[in-house]
């Protein structure tokens, strides 16, 4: 039996007459790397905000890590991690301060914080940098730290919103090693990206077009269904048909 950690049923968000997310239904399993793709304006951010318990749906159902998106948003927030390119760490806090700050926000006790921050700093090999400002770290280290902080409280699911935008090709790949590693430990990874090669690294992918999920399968399955060689072509075929957005 697959262990379902995200389950949505006709999840919908309306802003006035505009249907940002239109009856989306899908399931994501434990330890899965799930790629959430779509053109700008397709409704990805809206959908993701609902899944994180940050925005109440207009209709439909969703259970995230066992909790209801209408009634149990606080429990959802405790059981998920979140990281994006735009918002990750505070540059003017030290490495240790950042770990303590975010760990505290996620509700870890002082004792847990002390243990976990020590272990994390050792695992990342940041002993020398623990008391340095995050601003002084190279981008690759910042990213590793920011991902590790997002999973510090052992969430069931981690949401990554374009985590690798603008990052160099080597650092980008090191970051995916972290994702694989987390998934191996049973953490579910829900990730958005504009890099189609990264779509290939996901176990399954959904592609949103105009508020709807138009395709959902393994990368291999999607390429077969569309009879094309690359995810790039799958994406073009679907997103070219989009009527709204940019």
């Amino acid at each position, binding site marked *: 039996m697959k262990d379902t950690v995200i389950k949505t049923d006709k999840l919908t968000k309306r802003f006035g007459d505009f249907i940002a997310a239109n009856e989306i239904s899908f399931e994501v399993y434990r330890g899965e790397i799930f790629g959430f793709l779509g*053109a*700008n304006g397709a409704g990805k951010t809206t959908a993701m905000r609902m899944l994180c318990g940050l925005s109440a749906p207009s209709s439909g159902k969703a259970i995230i890590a066992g909790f209801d998106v209408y009634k149990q948003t606080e429990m959802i927030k405790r059981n998920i991690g979140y990281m994006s390119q735009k918002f990750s760490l505070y540059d003017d806090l030290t490495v240790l301060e950042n770990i303590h700050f975010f760990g505290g926000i996620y509700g870890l006790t002082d004792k847990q914080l002390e243990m976990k921050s020590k272990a994390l700093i050792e695992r990342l090999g940041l002993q020398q940098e623990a008391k340095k400002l995050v601003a002084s770290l190279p981008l690759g280290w910042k990213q590793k730290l920011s991902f590790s902080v997002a999973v510090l409280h052992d969430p069931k699911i981690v949401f990554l919103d*374009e985590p690798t935008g*603008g*990052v160099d090709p080597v650092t980008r790949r090191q970051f*995916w090693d972290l994702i694989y590693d987390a998934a191996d430990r049973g953490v579910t990874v829900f990730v958005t990206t*504009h890099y189609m*090669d990264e779509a290939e690294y996901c176990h399954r992918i959904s592609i949103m077009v105009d508020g709807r999920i138009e395709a959902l399968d393994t990368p291999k399955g999607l390429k077969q269904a569309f009879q094309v060689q690359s995810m790039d072509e799958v994406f073009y075929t679907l*997103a*070219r048909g989009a009527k709204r957005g940019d």
Partner: protein
Amino acid sequence: MDAVVVQDLIKIYGKDDVRAVDNVSFSVKPGELFGLIGPDGAGKTSIFRMLTTLLLPDGGSATVDGYDIVKDYKYIRNTVGYMPGRFSLYQDLTIEENLTFFATVFGTSIEENYHLIKDIYVQIERFKDRRAGKLSGGMKQKLALCCALIHKPTVLFLDEPTTGVDPVSRKEFWEMLKRLKQEGITIVVSTPYMDEATMCDRIALIQSGKILSIERPEVIVNAYADQLYAVKADHMYSLLKALNRFDHTINSYAYGEYAHASFRGPATEHEVVEFLTSQGLANIEMHRIAPTIEDCFIKLLKNS
């Protein structure tokens, strides 16, 4: 005369004397589409801001259309177009008001140079009474490009115009740039997306303030010294780890559905497959491939 000439340009920030731009030199020919390709923090924006006279260099020199970026800043500001990475039009003005504003500031009108922006403007024209702050990302990008073009600049500087933009819109944007190039406008564009490099006439690969290579994209690709292979097996993460352990591996990393790898001379394809099989991998597939710009960049990063 070259449209842009950069000579040993240096920019230093902060107490720690970080060299954001470290002795950078390149030149751009008139009518050329020149790309600065590199990740965040490589120094691309600092170079753009110095060339558009918004930032003073700490060393070296540069000219745009023959004008010096320090002494002749007033000339340069009149002739170049600049689209910064961060949206910087007036959020409270409508599309049409923004465009009229920029045309007026440069002493021209929308009508005079309408042919330059027509292809792009028609895509947002039906929203012309909407405030810029209320536009979607792609529409903002198109408006910003129109505003940077409306005075018919000789050189157009575009700082990461496609960052955060989906693959379909990115492709459309590059098609627009190709049409502008046909109008004879010199374009200097930066991007963190390696696949966009092939759209440029010449590119400079840049990392940590230093230029790693300047060439036509096809020359950079042809100069790749090792034989590159695409390798596939039933389990990607195990494959990557196994390739890393192999004694003869020079370089190996994930690349879409395949791993890309190069091997030292003595290792034959057969030996690689044999090793991977001994590591418990199955359904191994391996074939020679031509490198992409991203492969070249990865190799340059590892060597530097």
